[in-house]
């Protein structure tokens, strides 16, 4: 998915923002972040910044689309939507009464879905009656609902950026508030984590189907990316779209969604990051009061599916009423493997800025492309992932022409050592990125919670420092030679109908 893809890219790039020249900063972040683990295993990271009386919250759960089985594909994301619908006390006028109607709605909706799945030639009159009954119940249900109450409360209290995102690896809920509102956040989020009510489930499922049309079906790049992923991975769940295939998405049911919630939204699977104008000790007390009683629970075993070694180049063409584009991907290891950091450097050398090799060669010299970007780490970091190239040819040049030159540049990486100046430039840029990231409360909260969740230790952000510094021109030749091969790549092309 487009925006999520961007999200993932941002995280992956930030993996190696390290500080050497301004070493004080590396030290200072480690000294400034306060880390706590509640008795139930919930992890809390806090960082005080006092420029303005505001505070940013990121709540991350180590669960995403990879944790679904194929028949419930899209559930992690649908659940994320549903958690905006309220709880037993938020979003309802009388939950006891409301629950009776909700149960009725579920009974009828499940019957309609089942008839559709089984393709049962239901008597048309019967189907029509079911649909009318459902509409009537949904109308009746409205009387008990306080629409989108969580959003309304946060908004009135000055909340901005109230949103969530679902990735392959991780699901995150975020909001920023004026700093006198910390307890409001604690109260709402502790409630959402324990007593969610998946009201308005079926209309929200329709919303997500519209989201799928918007991000994928009606967008040429969306369809290209979906096909690219499905061909890059044969076995690993990274092959499935986060939002779910159309045929699965339309029948996702509430039982499975609730079960998914109960399985994964445990305090021992949760990381909270809070950055801004706070008093750490006071906020810790608040958090203990609201969250520490939530019981921990055993989590499912780790995913044992492994993508087998690729046996040869895979190619896929997507036809569309749009101009050509292309994605090329190579399998590679993920963090904390040393080779992953080498790829971070390769990423910079190939496509970062106007001095990068792809820009100079393909855009300036050959004038074959309008853009060529690389990304290390799609589509996630919990499992071995891809080094990907996104290329857009300039008419009358074709994807295939562009491909040839791209492979030429990749071969050069294998044969000639990169210059010391190129290498130093990339390292300088990564260090500067790190400093610039420290400018925003929300950015810091995002970074801390992401690395803590995915790698198990936020310090990872800084420990990269020395590792990236160690990368040599020989490492790059070696890693390029090992992974950037024809046999190991998948090529997806968008072409005119």
């Amino acid at each position, binding site marked *: 998915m487009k925006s999520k893809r961007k999200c993932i890219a941002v995280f992956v790039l930030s993996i190696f923002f390290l500080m050497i020249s301004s070493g004080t900063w590396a030290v200072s972040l480690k000294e400034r972040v306060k880390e706590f683990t509640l008795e139930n295993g919930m992890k809390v990271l806090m960082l005080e910044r006092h420029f303005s009386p505001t505070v940013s919250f990121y709540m991350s759960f180590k669960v995403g689309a990879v944790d679904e089985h194929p028949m419930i594909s899209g559930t992690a994301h649908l659940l994320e939507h549903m958690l905006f619908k309220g709880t037993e006390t938020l979003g309802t006028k009388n939950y006891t009464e409301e629950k009776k109607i909700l149960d009725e709605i579920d009974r009828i909706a499940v019957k309609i879905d089942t008839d559709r799945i089984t393709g049962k030639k239901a008597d048309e009159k019967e189907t029509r009656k079911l649909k009318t009954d459902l509409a009537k119940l949904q109308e009746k249900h409205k009387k008990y609902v306080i629409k989108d*109450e969580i959003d309304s409360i946060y908004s009135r209290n000055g909340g901005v950026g109230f949103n969530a995102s679902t990735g392959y690896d991780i699901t995150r809920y975020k909001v920023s508030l004026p700093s006198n509102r910390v307890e409001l956040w604690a109260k709402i989020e502790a409630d959402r984590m324990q007593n969610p009510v998946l009201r308005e489930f079926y209309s929200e499922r329709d919303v997500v189907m519209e989201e799928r049309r918007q991000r994928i079906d009606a*967008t040429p790049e969306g369809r290209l990316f979906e096909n690219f992923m499905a061909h890059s991975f044969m076995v690993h769940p990274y092959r499935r779209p986060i939002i779910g295939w159309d045929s699965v998405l339309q029948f996702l049911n509430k039982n499975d969604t609730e079960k998914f919630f109960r399985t994964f939204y445990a305090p021992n699977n949760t990381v909270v990051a809070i950055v801004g104008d706070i008093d750490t000790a006071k906020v810790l007390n608040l958090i203990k009061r609201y969250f520490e009683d939530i019981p921990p629970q055993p989590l499912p075993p780790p995913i044992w599916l492994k993508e087998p070694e690729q046996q040869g180049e895979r190619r896929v063409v997507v036809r569309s009423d749009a101009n050509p584009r292309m994605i090329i991907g190579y399998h590679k290891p993920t963090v904390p493997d040393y080779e992953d950091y080498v790829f971070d450097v390769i990423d910079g050398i190939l496509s970062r800025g106007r001095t990068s090799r792809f820009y100079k060669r393909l855009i300036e010299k050959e004038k074959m492309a309008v853009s060529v970007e690389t990304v290390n780490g799609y589509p996630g970091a919990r499992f071995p992932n891809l080094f990907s190239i996104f290329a857009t040819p300039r008419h009358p040049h074709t994807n295939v022409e562009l491909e040839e030159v791209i492979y030429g540049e990749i071969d050069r990486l294998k044969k000639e050592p990169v210059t010391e100046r190129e290498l130093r430039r990339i390292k300088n840029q990564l260090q500067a990125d790190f400093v610039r990231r420290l400018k925003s409360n929300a950015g810091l909260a995002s970074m801390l919670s992401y690395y803590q969740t995915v790698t198990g230790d936020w310090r990872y952000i800084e420990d990269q420092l020395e590792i990236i510094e160690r990368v040599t021109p020989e490492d790059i030749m070696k890693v390029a030679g090992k992974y950037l091969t024809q046999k190991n790549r998948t090529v997806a092309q968008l072409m005119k109908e």
Partner: protein
Amino acid sequence: MRKVIILSLFMMVVTGGVPHHIYGDMSGHPRDMSFTPLTFAPPKGDRITLNNGMVLYVLEDQELPLFNLSAVIRTGSIYDPTERVGLAQLTGKVMRTGGTKLMEPDEINDQLEYIAGSVEIGIGRESGSASLSVMKKDIDFGLKIFSDILMNPRFDQSKLDLAKKQKIEAIRRRNDNPSDIAFREFRRVLYKGNPRGRISTFESINAITRQDLIEFHDKFFRPGNMLFAVSGDFKKDVIIKKLEQTFQGWRKSPVSITEAPLPEYSLKRSIHYAFKDVSQSTIVLGHLAVSKTDPDYYPFTVLNFILGGGGFNSRLTSEIRSNRGLAYSVGSFYRGDVEYGVFAAICMTKSSTTYQAISLIEKIITETKENGVTEEELTWAKESIINKFIFTFTSSASVVNQQMWLEYDKLPDDYLQKYQENVSLVTHEDIRRVAKKYLHPDKSLFVIVGNGEAFDKPLSLLGEVTEIELKNTDESEAEVEIRNRKSTSDK
């Protein structure tokens, strides 16, 4: 050393809420919680005028070893000559990529990227922007490159040719995505006959020469025609001296700009449709609205928040998305410019509910126009806008940028100071009045992109439909390019 006095721009207040329960009582409902009220006096940057007339807003911030400069230039594509639409954009682009009198294009890129610095120039519709970001240790070097680009761009011919080729490819691709088509066509028809509605073409891009860029730059990039916002880890006196020295060779000179005509408020219902073979339609409908400098700006801002700008609880989103599941993206936007404004509702829905969604949007806007809003909605919208306002000032860079833009827009000094108060003064009666005066669902411009054959009802039920033809540019344009290539190599 002179003591730096930080003056408060103003005191900001975040309300305490209704005190229904005791602080820290876990049993209370979140909707009833109250908080210790918050006051905040954001720092204010100093306004400095250099000898040549350049205006700076300067604010020290020692948190990180960084230096940030952003500038706004009074220019824009509204000043493009009719037969050279795209000139402003290309000028901005090639200023950055085309070298300077002192430095080769590649040399600039190499030196700047080696120190992880960035300089960017861009020219939009009604303003231009320039930015510099470097580490503290590289301030001198960064300013040297930045000022050289602003004052002495070389406009290297080969970089201009490249930029034109890139732009032509962008034109070729402009019909790939349905939402791009819808927003572009909305703008084109809304501003018909006005420079704001012009779209670049292969011909207009091909007509642009290096001399055009030189003249465009010379006309607009003058010391008295731009404002700077400077923040970061420096001493104010030192940085002012540095800037004075850096730009001392740039003489004060009069700026003469013929103002572009303002868009005309002609309200007329018109339906425009473009065919795209996709499963989801993009709908945009709206019209011109009140300007930012009109007192009605505040009530209309609140009204738009309630109607479709305020997220889940706004009327359009709540009904069309949440209640009916007809869209993932649906809502409205209102942009108040200095001298005019635009209001529009947008929605993306599957082909088979396109007409239904349009009817609902019309119905919701009409009801709002006729009956106004509820007391509860008004309170929610006002509290939200007032309490979110604090996020306008979360960094030193955002503080000086705000000040710079206020001056660019010629708004009063106390504009931000009075913003919350002005919102708080909006009454029920104001909303009713501005809804009647500025909402015109029956006289809107409708743009719909999608597969009409699969719509639930024909668009002709809305009125007379004008079909937008999306030109397939494959052949004709390739020829133009070949011709162009020849003419370039002839030189």
